């Protein structure tokens, strides 16, 4: 018991030291604005991937519209900070809430669908959100939303990533999280055991959408400028790729996936013409030779309560592979 507590404290200290280190490096200019930009992108990608992993990896609901929630968050935050001069913390939280409400509204009807059909419905939802954003003049239409104040910095990114991972991790270890995992394993069996499947699917959807919304808010308030096409179908795919690349149903996998894919695309920026070609080949090789993702289902060891999980059953991604 003592050991576990010590390890948690140790992890906290390491994380805090990492935060201070990067903070100092940014302030002294050793990490220049280019690398800071990449740190921000990695952080946003981690939040997006972990939140999608909750929906797709842990609850087994195949969503191709995650970028739509991000776009709602981004626009909410942009309107609140640029047009109404609200503080960033309020904008950040409200972005999450707006995305979450949208998640509930779209989730209640569509989550009755299964597998590929749900994927197509969420894809359609994402496209509808994009087309509506393009045709709304109040938020700049197709040209985009300009002059968003920059609030996002290393502290906000670090704190948001940490809070996202911790909350989702805690959620998954709770009664409700286990109900979600049960739905992934076998929806009918879960239902016959008394799990209210619709409720938990919508719940997972709402939580995932909330964090995607906050990621959108961080994105909007860092880049000064957003446009609907940044949150299209390809963005949703990018997030899904991170999740699958890292390992479906592994939070650590999503973190590592986000970091490694961001680094890969950083290196590929030197050869813009062949960038996407090489990216697609890497993706393909990983899927063929390691189709469970680089981490499979392995997890943060340090967060596990060992005694409970000693005889942990090896889960398989039943709901998706069926």
């Amino acid at each position, binding site marked *: 018991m003592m050991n576990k507590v010590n390890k948690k404290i140790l992890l906290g200290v390491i994380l805090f030291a990492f935060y201070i280190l990067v903070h100092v490096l940014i302030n002294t200019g050793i990490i220049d604005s280019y690398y800071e930009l990449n740190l921000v992108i990695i952080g946003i990608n981690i939040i997006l991937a972990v939140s999608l992993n909750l929906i*797709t990896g842990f609850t087994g609901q*195949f969503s191709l519209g995650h970028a739509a929630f991000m776009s709602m968050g981004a626009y909410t935050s942009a309107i609140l900070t640029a047009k109404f001069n609200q503080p960033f913390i309020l904008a950040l939280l409200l972005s999450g809430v707006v995305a979450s409400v949208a998640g509930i509204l779209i989730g209640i*009807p*569509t989550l*009755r*669908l299964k*597998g*590929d*059909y749900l*994927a*197509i*419905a969420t*894809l*359609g*939802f994402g*496209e*509808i959100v994009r*087309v*509506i954003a*393009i*045709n709304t003049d109040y938020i700049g239409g197709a040209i985009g939303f300009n002059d968003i104040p920059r609030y996002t910095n290393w502290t906000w990114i670090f704190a948001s990533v940490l809070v996202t991972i911790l909350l989702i991790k805690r959620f998954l270890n709770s009664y409700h999280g286990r109900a979600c995992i049960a739905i992934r394993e076998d929806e*009918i069996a879960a239902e016959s055991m008394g799990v209210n499947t619709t409720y938990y699917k919508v719940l997972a959807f709402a939580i995932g959408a909330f964090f995607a919304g906050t990621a959108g808010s961080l994105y909007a308030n860092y880049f000064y400028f957003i446009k609907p096409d940044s949150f299209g*179908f390809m963005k949703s*795919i990018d997030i*899904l*790729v991170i999740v*699958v690349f890292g390992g*479906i149903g592994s939070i650590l996998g999503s973190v590592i996936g986000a970091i490694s894919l961001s680094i890969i695309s950083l290196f590929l920026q030197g050869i813009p*013409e*062949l*960038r*996407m*070609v090489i*990216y*697609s*080949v890497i*993706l*393909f090789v990983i*899927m*063929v030779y390691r*189709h*469970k993702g680089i981490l499979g289902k392995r997890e943060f060891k340090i967060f596990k309560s060992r005694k409970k999980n000693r005889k942990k059953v090896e889960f398989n*991604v039943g709901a*998706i*592979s*069926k």
Partner: protein
Amino acid sequence: MEQVLQQLINGISLGSIYALIALGYTMVYGIINLINFAHGDIYMIGAYVGYAVTRFLGLGFVPALLISMATCSILGILIEKVAYKPLRNASRISALITAIAVSLFLQYTMMYFVKPDTRTFPDVLSSNKISILGGKALLDTKNIYIILITIVLMLLLQYVVLKTKIGKAMRAVALDKDVAQLMGVDINRIISFTFAIGSALAGAAGVLVGVYYNTINPLMGTVPGLKAFVAAVLGGIGLIPGAVFGGFFLGMVETLVSAYGGSIFKDAVAFGILIIVLLIKPSGLLGKTVKEKV
């Protein structure tokens, strides 16, 4: 009234293109349950092959169509053998990501070789406007060609699937892969054949689009690919008549919506209809509801 008629003609032309692409989607989905996202890009390659053959070899429309179909079917077989076969037993999500990887690969390899600019497709079909119904509507000969070729290809497909031995094998594999194998059907051959046919139809659609709209570019496959997929789902994925119906339905709805002032919401309407149909009848408008067994 005249306008409606005119728009219906355009809608049918657009719909035949959607239907041709949707057929490939639906056949591949029916046989290996994979959303083949690379299908839209095979259609793009078909358009480029047609372009190369007509511009650099100076061939006419029909040879271009046939060469394009042949090239695309070889490409389709190749993609299946290299990319999808190793993942046949993997989870659906990894197969889907592989399909997306193939799609990106085709798009950007093409972009690398042919450069991202839009190109003008040579005028291989003369465009004569015929006024019909006492001058109330104009019928372009290109429209007639597109619709005729689509109908011929569909009848051919229907013949292959329903009347030939290999068609019977295809239906058997779609119904139950394992049992079909036990009955002596060579599954790998049938899957390759399905990819070949589907890709050939996409190649034909590519040439027809090149002739009809005159412009092609390496990213032209994405949006029609998604739309055709929507069409396949609308009609009931896995069903050949469903794909045809969905293609024409979507083509007409889109042209009518853009004709009556909603052109900016054209894409949203297509996906809106999709969501409504999925909610009311998830198996598609022509699909049969399958009871889920425990």
